[in-house]
């Protein structure tokens, strides 16, 4: 803004130079910003192309029917890891949904203005960005150590702890969007608070709450670090025994990608493509569900 003052008060020659400088700075900013965006899009494109090129080769029928092969052997699939991942994320989301929705409800409906609710809201935000490996260490100490074995249950609990803050946050945000007049109308009919919440507020915010659950699902589906110390893996046997280690896609990808066997690496690529595609589809669905909610 100093520059615009200079232009009006100085001679034409000087203002020309100033104007030139301003134009250069402006052009530089435009180019730099566009470049930054292109780099971002390029990286996403590169990752997707790499996954498709490397992963599609592994997409054979046996991928979904056979369990993971032993080290150095040929063939096999990742059926046990797919099943294990479904079971673990299922447990995680089943534990996290009621806790997350209820905690979000408390923060939005009962805890307005209370100090405790403000603290919990703050800690929930912290937990939302906490390193997931620390959650793995916590569940290891809480469950794996006392039980003496890596287990599917421990993996499910670890994933639930990661999912809860996501659900709490979206539930609270969505409930806050529900107009107060709706609640008043419910209360005026003589309904107790819990009835107003369950049959009026929740219903009005249902699309947003479901979005939160889908986002949490997308978040935990690819989590690897906490599963390393909890569910670990179960290589060659097709098993859904939750009291022992359970095979799952992220840990399988980690171990197979870093292995020296080409067959294992190929399976890791196929698994990586499968999991990334699933997560991107889930995220896009969540965005489409939430759209009418926020634009209203």
């Amino acid at each position: 803004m100093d520059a615009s003052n200079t232009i009006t008060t100085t001679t034409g020659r000087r203002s020309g130079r100033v104007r030139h400088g301003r134009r250069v700075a402006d052009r530089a900013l435009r180019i730099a910003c566009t470049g930054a965006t292109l780099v971002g899009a390029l990286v996403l494109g590169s990752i997707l192309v790499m996954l498709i090129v490397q992963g599609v080769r592994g997409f054979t029928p046996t991928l979904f029917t056979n369990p993971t092969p032993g080290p150095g052997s040929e063939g096999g699939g990742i059926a046990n890891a797919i099943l294990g991942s479904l079971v673990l994320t299922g447990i995680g989301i089943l534990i996290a949904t009621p806790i997350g929705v209820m905690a979000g409800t408390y923060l939005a409906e009962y805890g307005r203005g209370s100090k405790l609710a403000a603290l919990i809201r703050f800690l929930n935000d912290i937990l939302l960005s906490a390193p997931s490996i620390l959650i793995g260490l916590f569940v290891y100490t809480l469950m794996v150590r006392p039980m003496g074995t890596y287990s599917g249950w421990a993996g499910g609990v670890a994933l639930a702890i990661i999912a809860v803050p996501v659900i709490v946050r979206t539930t609270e945000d969505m409930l806050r969007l529900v107009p107060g007049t709706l609640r008043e109308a419910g209360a005026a009919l003589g309904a107790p608070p819990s009835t107003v919440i369950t049959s009026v507020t929740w219903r009005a915010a249902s699309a947003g709450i479901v979005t939160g659950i889908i986002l949490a699902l997308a978040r935990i589906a690819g989590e690897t670090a906490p599963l390393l110390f909890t569910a670990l893996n179960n290589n060659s046997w097709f098993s859904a025994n939750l009291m022992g280690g359970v095979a799952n896609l992220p840990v399988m990808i980690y171990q197979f990608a870093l292995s020296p066997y080409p067959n294992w690496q190929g399976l890791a690529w196929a698994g990586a493509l499968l999991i990334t595609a699933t997560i991107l589809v889930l995220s896009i669905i969540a965005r489409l569900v939430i759209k009418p909610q926020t634009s209203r």
Partner: protein
Amino acid sequence: MPALTESIALGRTRSATARKAPSRSLDTLFRTFSYAAALLVLLVLAGILGSILYGGWPAFREFGFGFLTSAAWNVGTEQYGALVAVLGTVASAFLALLIGVPVSLGIAVYLTQLCPGWARKPVAMTIELLAAVPSIIYGMWGLFVFAPLFARFVQIPVSNLAEGMPIVGTLFYARVPSGVGVLTAGIILAIMIVPFIASIARDMLDQIPTVLRESAYGIGCTTWEVVRHVLVPQAAVSIIGAIMLGLGRALGETMAVTFVVGNANRLSASIFDPSSTIASRIANEFNEADGLQLNALMALGCILFVITFVVLIIARLLTRRVQSA
């Protein structure tokens, strides 16, 4: 109720109590359950701190303050120190910010100021989808796609050029130019934090009243001047909050870093050399560790907890203050 006709009043109250009695206890139950669920969030955070403190305590007791300053990590002699991992964590996160912050702010400015309207949504969505890609995929991409290219086109030429030069030589000379190392980890982390910082910064820039922007354009400001004198001062605090949030993520990121950092326990001044971070070391060694090594890894977890939580708390305080203002 004395004013009401008796028959009606009796009938009404009876049916009302009949309906209300169970629902009132249900009401209390509902409230209690939601309260308990909220408290659980608090308990989990306390549990995380408690469990790693408990697990790491023997290591802290054994090595004392020296745990922080020792670069040793020897399973055979049971000597453990956190220095290499802590420095690796801090260095890779710092490099990630150095690279990631300008790029994310550039994207945020592009999306709010320069991007044509029809492209705004798809571009924003593309950038945000980057945040949804699991970190293990970034690790694979980093190791199999990025690292070979980086070794061939950056590490080897730069390393050859820098060899023997005084300060630059120690900073940029790669003993084994394999493409993995602290700088590679920093670059991969930068790619991972860009979508977060960019989307928060974009939201903050969007919240700035259009009137301010338009009046600046009205007196003849260029886009650069609008960004420099209007947008940046307005959104500075929250953008710093967003950057801190990205820093928190970079510090705790595990899988992507484990793939590309090289996992060496060596103190080196060169950012091309392999090293390790706290998270990568825990991920690598935890399953094979027992005894004092396990305690030392837990103690590393404690340090990570303290570092990231301080950063995250500052980040949340900064972003929250702006949201409420």
